[in-house]
């Protein structure tokens, strides 16, 4: 029964989404207040029914209801409870339901936190979000129904892919989707603003905290995904330029451009048209990501389904969303006047440069991701684009970003002073180079020019990102200088996090060492400063697997510093073999051991890695996320008085008169 309840709740949610889209949009166009008033209750009801539906699916997993096809295909009675719950979004149908639920959550949040926004504007935003929701819910109900029954009911389920039986599955997809789907909010704001014709600073101010929060989640989701892939796949890498990773990275690049461009629009009233376009692109790329992952055109650990019907549906949906919004943009944007003037050297110009670089970076990733697909679809041959493409294009495009991020906050709006900037930063250039030289020559090899340059960039960015704060403290002579808006601290923290990330990339990419060896029990292998002693393999029983567990003692000199127990697991339900790497983590370095294959006489092939500073990569991601949240918490966004809104949002004035 519970599955039928879930299905019913889903249908009601769809009806609510239709109400939420049709009446408010029509009401805003025809100026019928009572129609517009439908928006909020419909949005909240939609979320409620989505939550019920999601709960029903979760309950089916918890209670091992294998008469539900989706449960039978992706769960098993021996699966531990935590993974049974996470398995709800472990495959296609459930993950789309999670997508819809999170869209409902964002919509409900917009319906609550909108104090001071003009009523027609709220109606339009919620209406647009309702339209998106209709698309997704139709997609679920028509092509990917998770509540479909399976008759006859199998005695047990086919189990969750062992690769996904991990804590990572519990956190990575929900956080990533919060970010992906969160891009629907600035998108809806942008479309609503285009519809109403009131593209102004107030619109940007409203859009900004939402965008920052969504961006923070996206950052966290990607960071978690990278960390998960690192320890789960057993290859020691943290980013593979896999098309599915790219699918999440492109919206992130766009969203990063968007938060910077929104800053200009809010503070200076410039770039309005461009900001709207970025908001459209960011959400379109989120949807494109969903198409790539869900349609089966890509093959990877993330690609669950191979159903052309689904791909076609998403492609049409994608076409409607992108086509529709770009058409609206083409019709409305030319009427928007950008009055703001700024000189060639100003913070506006630097932020524009930031935007151009980020968009180019996103475009280069898009090219490398889509080109093989297009070629294949046109039957022009099967190719793939290797990671070297991405690194060789990406590095030169993004390198200036790291340098500019340190300068941008030091330059004044409208008219910067090049001489003054030079006085501020001149010592930072030799200082960064010297610091990088010292660090690499003490611990690493300074002759690796690439990593030296990247490290110098990182030190430059870390120090210059703190410079504005130091200046303010100096200016106010003491702690009162620390009293800055949280938005300022958010920016500082995010830029500092970017530097920390870059330190991790610079050091771990260039100074990691690895070795693939064949070890018999009692053998040892030396890698860098560490000696790995293999003590043999024992059998272990897991809850739903059996494992060969190796024991490795790690010595630095004569001192034993860790015992690592990597596993080779066998999951009998799917007859799958899984490598479970063992890691001794530290900020300075990770020691990483993964079992390969069993050879004769108890010997094993083994992968050994020493990865210096690899944790800094994810630490940097977390700091960036923290910076985004801090910026979103700025008082300025909460303290908007309704009266001031009435002045700026022409819509409000219209309805008051009408």
């Amino acid at each position: 029964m519970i599955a039928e309840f879930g299905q019913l709740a889903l249908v009601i949610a769809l009806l609510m989404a239709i109400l939420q889209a049709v009446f408010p949009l029509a009401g805003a166009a025809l100026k019928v207040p009572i129609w517009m008033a439908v928006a909020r209750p419909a949005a909240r009801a939609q979320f409620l029914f989505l939550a019920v539906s999601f709960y029903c699916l979760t309950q089916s997993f918890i209670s091992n209801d294998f008469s539900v096809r989706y449960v039978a295909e992706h769960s098993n009675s021996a699966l531990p409870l935590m993974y049974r719950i996470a398995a709800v979004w472990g495959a296609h149908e459930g993950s789309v339901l999670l997508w819809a639920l999170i869209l409902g959550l964002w919509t409900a949040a917009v319906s609550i936190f909108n104090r001071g926004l003009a009523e027609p504007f709220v109606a339009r935003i919620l209406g647009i979000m309702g339209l998106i929701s209709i698309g997704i819910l139709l997609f679920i109900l028509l092509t990917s129904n998770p509540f479909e029954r399976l008759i006859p009911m199998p005695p047990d389920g086919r189990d969750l892919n062992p690769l996904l039986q991990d804590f990572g599955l519990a956190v990575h997809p929900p956080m990533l989707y919060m970010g992906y789907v969160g891009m629907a909010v600035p998108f809806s704001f942008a479309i609503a603003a285009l519809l109403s014709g009131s593209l102004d600073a107030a619109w940007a101010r409203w859009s900004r905290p939402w965008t920052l929060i969504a961006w923070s989640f996206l950052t966290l989701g990607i960071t978690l995904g990278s960390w998960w892939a690192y320890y789960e796949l057993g290859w020691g890498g943290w980013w593979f330029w896999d098309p599915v990773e790219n699918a999440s990275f492109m919206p992130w690049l766009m969203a990063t451009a968007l938060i910077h461009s929104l800053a200009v629009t809010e503070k200076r009233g410039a770039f309005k048209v461009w900001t709207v376009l970025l908001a459209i692109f960011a959400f379109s790329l989120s949807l494109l990501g969903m198409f790539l992952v869900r349609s089966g055109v890509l093959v990877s650990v993330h690609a669950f389904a191979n159903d052309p019907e689904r791909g076609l549906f998403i492609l049409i949906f994608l076409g409607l969303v992108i086509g529709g919004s770009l058409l609206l943009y083409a019709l409305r944007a030319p009427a928007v006047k950008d009055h703001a003037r700024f000189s060639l050297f100003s913070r506006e110009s630097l932020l524009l440069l930031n935007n151009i670089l980020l968009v180019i970076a996103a475009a280069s990733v898009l090219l490398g991701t889509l080109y093989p697909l297009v070629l294949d679809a046109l039957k022009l041959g099967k190719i793939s684009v290797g990671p070297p493409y991405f690194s060789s294009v990406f590095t030169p495009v993004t390198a200036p970003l790291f340098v500019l991020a340190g300068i941008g906050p030091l330059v004044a709006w409208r008219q910067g002073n090049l001489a003054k900037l030079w006085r501020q930063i001149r010592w930072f250039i030799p200082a960064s180079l010297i610091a990088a030289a010292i660090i690499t020559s003490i611990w690493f090899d300074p002759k690796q020019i690439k990593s030296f340059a990247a490290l110098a960039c990182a030190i430059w960015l870390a120090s210059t990102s703190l410079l504005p704060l130091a200046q303010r403290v100096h200016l106010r002579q003491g702690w009162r200088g620390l009293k800055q808006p949280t938005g300022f601290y958010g920016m500082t923290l995010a830029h500092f996090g970017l530097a920390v990330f870059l330190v991790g990339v610079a050091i771990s990419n260039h100074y990691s060492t690895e070795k693939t060896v064949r070890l018999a029990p009692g053998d040892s292998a030396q890698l860098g400063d560490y000696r790995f002693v293999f003590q043999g393999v024992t059998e272990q029983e897991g809850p739903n697997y059996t494992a060969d567990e190796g024991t490795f003692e790690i010595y630095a000199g004569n001192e034993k510093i860790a015992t690592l127990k990597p596993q080779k697991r066998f999951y009998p339900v799917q007859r799958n073999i899984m490598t479970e790497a063992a890691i001794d983590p530290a900020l300075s370095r990770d020691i990483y051991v993964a079992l390969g294959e069993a050879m004769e006489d108890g010997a094993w092939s083994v992968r050994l890695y020493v990865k210096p500073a690899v944790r800094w990569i994810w630490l940097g991601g977390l700091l960036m996320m923290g910076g985004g949240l801090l910026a979103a918490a700025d008082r300025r966004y909460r303290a908007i008085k309704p009266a001031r809104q009435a002045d700026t949002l022409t819509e409000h004035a219209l309805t008051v008169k009408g």
Partner: protein
Amino acid sequence: MTPRQRRMIWVAVIITGVSLATFLALAAFQKNLLYFYTPSQVQAGEAPTGYAFRVGGLVEKGSVKRQPDSLAVRFTLTDGNAKVTVFYDGILPDLFREGQGIIAIGQLQPDGLFKASQVLAKHDENYMPPEVADALKKTGAMPTVDEFKGANR
């Protein structure tokens, strides 16, 4: 500076940036495209030597030969029509098995041996790399779903 001049400078900057990026991208593309060949194409001499590409097929049963004291391994890939012998020195993926569809990336040696730098198999018993599936369909060697599952069970 008039707004017009300022705009022109920005347009110039953008065009330079975009063309530079395009140039970089295309140059990198040229070097990093990996083409896919079937064993039949390799045997017919269509695949290049001295240039990395991907080859895919089923691992022929009984063809996997390991060297006793190292990680080096040799096996035969087939699409039902033709065969390619692959040499690989390293750890094979978890799901590498005889009868399984896999993809190898590497270079063809003048003597016809394919020296792989990477061997890919997927974490799904029913999974067949699409390129391999296409190649097998062409030669009629595609196992039916049941056979394929049976081979793995």
